[in-house]
């Protein structure tokens, strides 16, 4: 009996499959919306668009999370796979730290509070700031790379115009607010669709 209880606290195969399914959905959304960044004006805007679009799946994911570690592993997997997708190492590092922070916020309410899951959604999506890392923090060498690959100066000017040096903190706040908005949208949608269908109970 005691062994059963101990086993149940650990993550089960079902939880791992859930993590995989939702990681795939988040990667799908991030990559799809990320294609907009070919136009410079969309680069700062994706910090809001991605969390809002991904808000519904994220809140649905949180209803399935009942144990510590699930959100953290999702952050790790999405981080690693975005790195493989060619976005550099920043999203991977930030993905893990933001996800662990979100997980701890959820744990503090034992995964039952709706308010804290909205806050956790905001915290989780701050990892998108990692995609801005190379542009802002190492701007000179990043531009040098783009130029050496044959990139046009006009795109770089657009980048300087739309993602200036001071924008790191505002963009971080934008990610957070985007996450909160996505979370609220997600909660409303869950109530409208999934509770009726019996997927969320």
């Amino acid at each position: 009996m005691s062994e059963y209880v101990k086993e149940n606290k650990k993550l089960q195969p079902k939880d791992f499959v859930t993590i995989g399914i939702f990681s795939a959905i988040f990667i799908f959304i991030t990559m799809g919306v990320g294609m907009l960044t070919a136009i410079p004006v969309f680069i700062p805007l994706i910090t809001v668009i991605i969390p809002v679009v991904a808000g519904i799946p994220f809140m649905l994911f949180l209803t399935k999370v009942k144990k510590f570690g699930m959100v953290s592993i999702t952050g790790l997997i999405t981080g690693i796979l975005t790195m493989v997708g060619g976005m550099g190492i920043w999203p991977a590092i930030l993905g893990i730290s933001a996800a662990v922070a979100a997980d701890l916020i959820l744990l503090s309410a034992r995964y039952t509070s709706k308010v804290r899951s909205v806050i956790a959604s905001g915290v989780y999506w701050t990892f998108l700031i990692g995609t801005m890392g190379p542009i802002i923090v190492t701007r000179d060498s990043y531009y040098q790379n783009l130029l050496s690959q044959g990139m046009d100066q006009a795109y770089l000017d657009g980048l300087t115009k739309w993602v200036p040096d001071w924008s790191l903190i505002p963009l971080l706040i934008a990610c957070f607010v985007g996450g909160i908005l996505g979370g609220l949208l997600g909660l409303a949608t869950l109530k409208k669709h999934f509770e009726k269908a019996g997927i969320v109970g």
Partner: protein
Amino acid sequence: MKKTKEELAETGPVDPRTKLLMLFLLPTVLSAGIPDHVSVLLITAAAIPVAILLIHKAIPAALIYAAAFVGAYLATTYLTPVVTPLLRTLIYTCSGLFVVVLPGAMMGYIIIRHTKTAEINAAMEKIRLTPKISIPIMVVIRFIPTLIKEAASINSAIKMRGIRFGGGKPVKIIEYRMIPLLMSSVKIGDELSMAAITRGMGAPVRRKPVYDISFNAADYILMGAGIFCVVLFIMTKVGAI
């Protein structure tokens, strides 16, 4: 009873561990930006997926990929310096990015199309990756093609009903696509976890993979090419070349 080597299923001609390594290695060495005069790094990195595809006898895929790469490479090298700025931006977004992203993307294609999920599982067990990470990664690899198919069929259903742009309610664009996608994803997820439990995932014992994986000559040559890329990458980073 311990299975002998002959009783284990044959894997593909390239060790899945090599493929996984390349999947991580190629985007890493390519994403950091490569100066023009180190094109040998670019070409070696691009040749690795071609070699793997050829070993798998996927000749059409290898040819299409090689042609796309050569075309994009020639366009970036010889066309961009001589055309107008507007055209240059266009060529860059189409081909410059292509050259850098394509090898990694091709490795992803090889993993999805030419590698069985059980082989990848065997590889991840062999490098002692914890199931906490290996099971989600396998689900992602297995699930992304399904997700694309589901999204495409939802899209065509939406088109048929004529509510492509929300049917006059633009806010609904996301809702109309996301809800059916999530409904079916949750169902597929439940089915996948049943299948996983049936196959003994998460059992308290160490699973023995069906596939016997081992390195052979092709793997050592591919690894050599990979190490060559890493050496060039480090030399570029410290400014030696």
